[in-house]
């Protein structure tokens, strides 16, 4: 539940409540209600209002939480007027690219809007570093649903790592996450992603058929 504060628009400084909150709870979906209550107590007016900056922070965190639908959940609660503001529009565009697998466009847009991303409250506390990593994790998640074997250039574009850095990254993943590096036919490297039930359908356990113990206990009286 959010409404914009009726104060004149000025470049809001990071309020101490945000810093406190972020320091204690870097990512917690339950932050918002707690903070709302806190803010409401502080504000003497009867109107329930929330700092637009705080919404921005929350959206930013929600973006990092993908594939969880947190981002759209937040949008449901932020008034349309507020969503039209520049910084919000940028985050919404970034979210759109991620939702539709357009990683190249995402990284381009994020780079162009570095200043907005950095202006999000809390980034001064060093949340920025986590942002890239979180998006890369999401990218790898979607790629793992989709590919058994993925060509190197496709992977590189999705996680925005190239050249030597990519080599290092791949070595690390091979050593720790079960990735296998193969030679593709003439076109360079192929990366074999770990097997899961989504990119290897034969692994799909018929979970539908397992009967929870609870259900069996219900018929114990009958089985006698």
């Amino acid at each position, binding site marked *: *539940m959010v*409404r914009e504060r*009726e104060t004149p628009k000025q470049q809001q400084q990071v309020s101490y409540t945000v810093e406190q909150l972020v320091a204690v709870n870097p990512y917690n*979906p339950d932050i918002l*209600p707690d903070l709302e209550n806190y803010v*409401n107590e502080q504000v003497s007016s*009867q*109107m*329930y*209002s929330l700092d637009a900056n705080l919404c921005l922070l929350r959206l930013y965190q929600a973006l990092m939480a993908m*594939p*969880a*639908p947190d981002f*759209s*959940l937040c*949008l*449901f*609660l932020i*008034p*349309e007027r507020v969503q039209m503001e520049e910084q919000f529009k940028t985050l919404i565009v970034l979210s*759109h690219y991620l*939702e*539709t*697998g*357009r*990683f*190249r466009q995402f990284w381009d847009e994020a780079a162009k809007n570095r200043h907005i991303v950095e202006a999000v409250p809390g980034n001064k506390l060093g949340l920025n570093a986590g942002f890239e990593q979180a998006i890369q994790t999401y990218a790898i998640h*979607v*790629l793992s*649903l*989709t*590919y*058994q*074997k*993925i*060509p190197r250039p*496709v992977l590189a574009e999705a996680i925005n790592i190239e050249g030597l850095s990519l080599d290092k990254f791949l070595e690390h993943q091979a050593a720790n996450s079960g990735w296998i590096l193969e030679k*593709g036919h003439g076109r360079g490297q*192929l990366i074999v992603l770990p097997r899961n039930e*989504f*990119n*290897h*359908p034969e692994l799909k356990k018929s979970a*539908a*058929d*397992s*009967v929870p113990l609870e*259900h*069996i206990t219900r*018929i114990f009286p*009958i*089985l006698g």
Partner: protein
Amino acid sequence: MATTYDYEEAPATYDEGRHQDLGYDPNFVPDSVRSFVVHLYRHIREKNVYEIHQMYEISFQTLSDRLFKDTPWPSVDAVAHYVDNDQVFCLLYREMWFRHLYARLSPTLKQRIDSWDNYCSLFQVVLHRVVNMQLPNQWLWDMVDEFVYQFQSFCQYRAKMKNKTEQEIALLRQYDQAWNVYGVLNYLQAFVEKSNIIQILEQEKEGLEQFTATDGYDYSGGSNVLKVLGYFSMVGLLRVHCLLGDYQTGLKCLLPIDISQQGVYTSVIGSHIATIYHYGFANLMLRRYVEAIREFNKMLLYIFKTKQYHQKSPQYEQILKKNEQMYALLAICLSLCPQVKLVDETVNSQLREKYGEKMARMQRYDDEALVIYDELFSYACPKFITPSAPSFEEPLVNYNQDAYRLQLKLFLYEVKQQQLLSGVRTFLKVYSTISLGKLANYMEVDEPTLRTILLTYKHKTHAVDSDGKIISNADVDFYIDDDMIHVVESMPVKRYGDYFLRQIVKVWYI
């Protein structure tokens, strides 16, 4: 914007102060009403739940139809002396009085505020005093349901500032606590906590408590009121949070209730429907389409089989309305996530009849499709509200549609993102393997674009459930090996386990 959404209210006609003009005397108590309150009072004191239910459900309706078709019931002051001026009975009477007013007439602002006061008084009695009553579940559900409804109605009313009179604006300013969103949430939350209902349900699973088995009634001389209000408040909270667009919190509030089984929530048809309707809607907005489809299907089948028994009930119209809305939501879910195998034959044929043509058009994902998505969503969605107090500065505006517009916009945004998936699906159904190059050709896009489309398909068909696990909604799936797409037909889910359990139970009952 679909006009089905617009909440139109006739101008209020019953101001108690002007009763002379309109032939209503709040102090006149017909004999049948005197008899009604005297008997109802006695039954409540004697805890005759069955009789209370009959009077509440049937007699009240009959008298309303006969004597109070378009006037309010006699004022509480006029009947109080017939019931020993019993404070609690008077609060209950007033609750019914206001509910009748909202149903048949149009409340004034003052009446809305008075109703809020009455709920506060009534709820405070239940929360803070030892209440020694047993009331029928129907009544207790209606209290919570009506409370939330009046809150929703007030927010809608308040958001239309444009034509408010000076008087109304003054009243709004003065009574700014009435129907405040925090107040509403507070009471519902207080019922949940004070009644200890969550712990009771937990302990019931281990056989340490009896609640569901007795339908919430207390057979050891106590009262069911607080416990059952606490229970129904969980559904109330789900509803309020949906109205505010906070789907995740809403679902969290419902968590203690196991909707895979019967429970007190199914003991009253209104509660059953409200629970599943909002649960399904919240899951739809969270993109958990399979979950929504499953629950809508079960509910619609149940209504189909049992609605004949409710034909005479005052809730019949509401039941039918919600039935239609759920069919619309089901049509939306199935268009976004074709999983027809999850739908029962009976429900499916009803669905085809009502929305067969529209569903075909929705799955074309063109501009016309968006219009239909808009139409169905607007028809079936909850009446979203903006909980904030209005701005009293000139110019006064109406903002009652803001909340709805936002939810609709975000919903259509999601639909648009899924636009390309329909095309992919069609091709995947035809091929077992196909190269990226070939498919890109057929779909008239370049390979990089096709890769993003395929990623989108995977992302959109694999939702994150409430435990953070990935669950697949896909009816047809695939994986990519370098530049080859391998299609995977998903098998119909045969639930042998459940089948055996049911057979065992069947045999036992022979």
